[in-house]
């Protein structure tokens, strides 16, 4: 069950994903991990019950290429990642503009590291 992901760059992403599709891989999903100044975008694919993973690291606030042109199924998770982490995807086939889940008044990206502070009582966290 060891997790190994192939590191790729933004320029390689779409061609690498297209190559996986040509080889019969099914797109499973994508995961996003907050690393502080940057984000890890992990792409999960499957062929014959075996998973393959790609890892793309992008600075926060940067744009990543969308793979929804290759796999239409990626459109929801890319929109979700935009909602939660603020990643802009270039070429997203159906862009909800950061409001797949969230209302327009939401100003923060809720899945980037959160902190809870108590502003009413002395000491103690909420």
């Amino acid at each position: 069950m060891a997790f190994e992901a192939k590191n790729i760059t933004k320029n390689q992403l779409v061609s690498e994903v297209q190559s996986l599709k040509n080889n019969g891989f099914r797109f499973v999903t994508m995961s996003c991990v907050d690393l502080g100044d940057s984000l890890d975008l992990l792409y999960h694919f499957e062929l014959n019950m075996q998973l393959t993973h790609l890892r793309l690291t992008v600075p926060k606030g940067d744009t990543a290429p969308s793979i929804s042109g290759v796999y239409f199924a990626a459109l929801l998770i890319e929109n979700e990642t935009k909602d939660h982490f603020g990643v802009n995807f270039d070429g997203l086939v159906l862009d909800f503009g950061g409001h797949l889940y969230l209302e327009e008044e939401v100003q923060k990206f809720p899945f980037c590291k959160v902190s809870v502070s108590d502003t009413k009582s002395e000491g103690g966290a909420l």
Partner: protein
Amino acid sequence: MATIVPFGPQHPVLPEPLHLKLVLEDEIVKQALPTLGYVHRGLETLASIKDINQMVQVVERVCGICSCIHAHNYCMCIEGLMGIEVPQRADFLRVIWSEMHRMHSHLLWFGLLADAFGMESLFMHAWRIREKIMDVMEATAGNRVIISINKVGGVRRDLSQDQLKWILKVLGEVEEELDKIKPVLTNDYTVKKRTVGKGVLTYQQAYELGAAGPQLRGSGVVQDVRMTGYGAYKYIDFAPVTEPDGDSWARTMVRFRELYQSIDIVRQLIGKLPEGEIAVKVKGKPSGEIVCRSEQPRGELLYYVKATGENFLDRVRIRTPTFANVPPLLAMLPGCEMADVPVIALSIDPCISCTER
């Protein structure tokens, strides 16, 4: 002229708040666009304030209907990261309860589908059969739906010999009841009229659009995470149920046949259930990255977990099967009649609670 008709989130046949904007020309759907966010809870972020044991209860609440399998998958992730070997008996018990969950989920869905096309007697029959499974879960785990039997390192409860005998007896009764309603499903004019040829998803579409579970297998794709042999599945004979036609009827038949399959799996597991401990003591904190998958009633469930040896996990990412089944739904609806949309939408067994987490 095109007309846009809102479908859901409040709809007589939808138990889940799914909203679709349907672009119609006359009565024919030309395009369907989803709107989500009605029950989004952000459960994944709770990993930053709940410890690894508390997270078991959190993931069980992603979805009530398949809570047991969420907890099983999450525990597999943590156990994989910590190198914990779960006792064999615990593996068996986890899968027995998981298959019970699959049965009650499929029967719940089957009743809802029957209700959607106006066959209330079939709806009541399906839910009456489901009650037998719910009784087993209540008697063996103390609750009907969120049974909380999984914990990191094993399970919380054991099954006695008397309980195992009783489960086998109940399964026999469930099988008999299913045999009685099977002809309705396979021969009835109403069922076929509302499902055959409706919402067709081809093999190629299902694969390329990332469909999961009965929606994928209903299009003839042989894919079931239980084939990987996780948990106790490696100890039993198992072959995925598939149907070739890709329509609502094929997806219905996959789920109906999976009810018999689950009965068979539980019988096999009870027949081979080893003696021994049901849990091991867990020490330390997890570290590293892992991906684990399991097969929920609605399809493939994937967890990605990252831990750094701290009290709290760095990231828990949950990909639920309905999330994967929404893009295929958008491909199935164009070309169908407006009146068929509710049954087609239900044929994917949507769980928006899972989808939005």
